[in-house]
Structure formats: structure tokens, C-alpha cells
């Protein structure tokens, strides 16, 4: 009961903010407005929800977890800018790579301070940025695939649910709550599906950034097992399996496959750190 009281207010706020922005986008009726407002809906909704969880934190934050809402906003704005001015895939990928590299360097500053040598640190950074870009590429492929309007939000929601569960099991209610806020922001965007409008691909950089930085925070600063983090980050890959035309049964198969990967991640996290009350 206490946990529910702890988690609900922030998630409701995130959901309402995202729904409000997406509703406004629908109201405007123009494709360009919707393209611009999709990533901003997730970025601003996550910002609002995260700050409701942690309270206002002085800038720049000392705790790197509190950089996440700022990262979300920055990447949302970057994503919109790319949609308008940088339409070539290579340019987008380069901007994404550089943006993610800067963000991860900030997030993992304590590891550079207390754990890694410079070489070790930059090797880790290179691999993690590569992985993050790969997650974004997979999600981008998923969003561009011919599908029903609710499919993409469903894949993202299942991923968020798994992230929430594994982070709670990793020993951090705070990070679990942040994952719930991300899920609520995506849920708020479901208002688009009421008019059979699918999520735009511009949402991918914001979502993949927030998902991966949450998982990395869980791995490096809480007790999230690496296997769980990798399973969740790459679970949406199973949604790309060809199953013919976009029908309900074919969607059912793909979401079931993604759910199996998420479930496996939860089992690993549970075995690693079974919950107990105190």
C-alpha cells in the first residue's frame, strides 16, 4: 500500500502531461506539429514525473541519477531538430552517437572517479554508446515497420514494465519509480492511438536514452544483474520477427516473444536478489 502511494502520484502526473501534449498535437492536426510534439511529450512528461519523485534538485545535480530528466529534455529537443533539419540517417546517427557519448560520460562520472582507469573508462564508454545506438536502431526499425497504431506503445510499455520490475528487485525503489514514470509517459501518448495515429520515429531517441540510462544506473549503482539489463534493452528485437501482415494474431505472437525475454530478465533479477521485507 505504501509503495503504491509512493509510485502513483508521479506516474499520474507523467501520464497527464504526456496525454496533454499529445492531445494538443492531435488538436493541431498537422503532421509536422505531431512530429515535433511526440518526443517532447515523453521528454517533458518524464521530467515532470522524475522531479515529483525526487523533489527539485539544484543544478547541476551531484547525484548522476538526477541528470536523467535533463537528458530526456535535451534529447527530445535534439530529436525534434533532427526531424526538421537533419533528415539523412547517417547525420542522425552521428548526432545520436555524440549526444549519447556526452550523456553517458556524465552519468558514469563516479565510475571514472572511483573505479576505472582512463583507458578502461573510455573502453566501457565506447561499448555502452555503441549498445545504446543499437537499441535506438532496433526501436527505429520497429516503429517504421508496418503495424497497427497501438503496437509500438505496447512494445514500449512491456519493456517499461520489465524495467520497473527488475529495478525494484535490484534494491532501488527510486529507480523503479523512474521506470514507472517512463512507462506512464508512454502510456499518456496512447491518446494518439484514439485517432489511429501511430507514434512517430522521433520518439525513439528519447525513449532509448531514458531506458538505457535507467538500466545502466541500475547496473552500476544498484544491484541490477547485467543479464537482466541486456535482456530488457534488446527484448524489442524479438518484435522485428517477420510474422506476415499486421494483424492481431501476428502482433500477439511478437508481443508474447518480447514478454518472454522480459520475463527471463525478471527471473534473473529475482534469483539474484529475492525481495524480503524489513
Amino acid at each position, binding site marked *: 500500500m*505504501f509503495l503504491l502511494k*509512493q509510485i502513483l502520484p508521479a506516474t499520474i502526473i507523467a501520464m497527464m502531461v504526456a496525454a496533454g501534449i499529445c492531445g494538443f498535437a492531435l488538436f493541431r492536426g498537422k503532421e509536422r506539429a505531431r512530429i515535433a510534439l511526440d518526443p517532447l511529450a515523453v521528454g517533458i512528461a518524464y521530467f515532470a514525473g522524475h522531479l515529483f*519523485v*525526487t*523533489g527539485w*534538485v*539544484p543544478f547541476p545535480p*551531484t*547525484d*548522476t*541519477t538526477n541528470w536523467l530528466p535533463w537528458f530526456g529534455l535535451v534529447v527530445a529537443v535534439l530529436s525534434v531538430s533532427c526531424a526538421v533539419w537533419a533528415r539523412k540517417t547517417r547525420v542522425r546517427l552521428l548526432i545520436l552517437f555524440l549526444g549519447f557519448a556526452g550523456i553517458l560520460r556524465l552519468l558514469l562520472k*563516479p565510475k571514472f572517479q*572511483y573505479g576505472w582507469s582512463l583507458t578502461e573508462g573510455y573502453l566501457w564508454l565506447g561499448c555502452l554508446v555503441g549498445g545504446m545506438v543499437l537499441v535506438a536502431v532496433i526501436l527505429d526499425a520497429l516503429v517504421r515497420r508496418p503495424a497497427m497504431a497501438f503496437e509500438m506503445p505496447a512494445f514500449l510499455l512491456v519493456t517499461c514494465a520489465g524495467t520497473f520490475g527488475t529495478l525494484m528487485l*535490484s*534494491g*532501488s*525503489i*527510486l*529507480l523503479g519509480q523512474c521506470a514507472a514514470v517512463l512507462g506512464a509517459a508512454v502510456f499518456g501518448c496512447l491518446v494518439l492511438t484514439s485517432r489511429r495515429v501511430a507514434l512517430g520515429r522521433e520518439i525513439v531517441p528519447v525513449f532509448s536514452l531514458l531506458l538505457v540510462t535507467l538500466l545502466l*544506473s541500475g547496473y*552500476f*549503482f*544498484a*544491484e541490477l544483474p547485467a543479464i537482466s539489463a541486456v535482456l530488457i534493452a534488446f527484448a524489442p528485437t524479438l518484435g522485428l520477427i517477420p510474422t506476415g501482415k499486421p494483424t492481431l494474431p501476428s502482433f500477439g505472437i511478437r508481443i508474447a516473444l518480447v514478454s518472454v525475454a522480459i520475463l527471463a530478465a525478471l527471473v534473473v533479477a529475482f534469483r539474484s*536478489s529475492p*525481495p*524480503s521485507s*524489513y
Partner: protein
Amino acid sequence: MKSSKLSFISIICSLGFGLSAYGADTYKVDPVHSSLVFSTKHFGVTNFYGRFNEITGTITFDTADPSKSSVELTVPVESIDTHNDKRNQHLKSPDFFNAKQFPTLTFKSTKIEGTGNLYKVSGDLAIHGVTKPITIEFKRGADGKGGQGETRGGGETQFTIKRSDYDMKFMTGAVGDDVNIIVSLEGIKQ
């Protein structure tokens, strides 16, 4: 004549230096016989107690001129002990101390004043990456001889902080914001 004047001055200076250095004793904190205990309210019901099992540091104390004294303490967050492994893990997580980002708590004195056995110690307390100035009352105990003839000295202090001042704002409904801290230090004279 000049060289004998210079020699005289240098002798006086080194004597003065020796005297002032002689007045300050340095104690290395004995982690086995020092304690750091904290308590805070759980759901507003009653105090819950925990401790940190390791404290290291140095106390330099000048009886003649306490303003020349200093204290430096370091406490690893990993040493937190609340007699429950799950709770220890939770306290070390990003929800509270975030031990992997901020592995130590530190205190470094900036000013010490007082007489007899009661002193006001001002300094910078760093918790969770946030450094705040605090002033505490430290009650000094008498020096004594240890089991191997070594000289031991120490004292105790008790004070309260708000964890939200150190950016630890999570779950203040369940775990109180006010944290009472008791530090009892015993050091071995060097």
C-alpha cells in the same frame, strides 16, 4: 658577530617551533574502539538505530591552544550495518546513500574552540556528495594507557542533521528526515 647573531636567531626560532609542535598531540583514530551510531524515526513511530562499522582519521589536539587543533574523519558507506542485509543494501542504493557514487562520508574541521573538556568543533560534513558546514559540541575524555602501554585519548559528540539537506530526500514519509548521530572516538597517540 653577524654569524653568531644568525645562529642565535635560528636557535630561538627552532625552539619556538619545537615548543608549539610539542603542544599539539596527534591521535590516530582506533576504528575498533570508536563508534558511529545513528537513529531516525520509522513511519514516525519510534527511533530505529544503525551504525557504521569503520571510522578512520586523525585528531590533532593542542591543549594550550585548541584553535590549532584539527579533526579529519572518513567513514566508508559500505560499512553501514543495520542488522538486516536487505536494509543495508537498500541504504547503500541510489534511494539513500548511493554508495557506489559517494563511497565515503567525511568530516574536516575548520575551527575548534573551548576549554577544559568541552569544545565547539566547526567543520565541513560531506554526505552524499553534498558538503555543509556544521558546529558540534565535543566532550573530551581523559587520556589513558592502553593494553600495550600506548597513550589513548578520545571523546564523544551527539548531534542531529536533516538528511534532506544532503540531497537524501527519498521516502521521508517512511524514514525520518531528522537523523540523530552519536560519534564516540578513541585515538592512539602517535
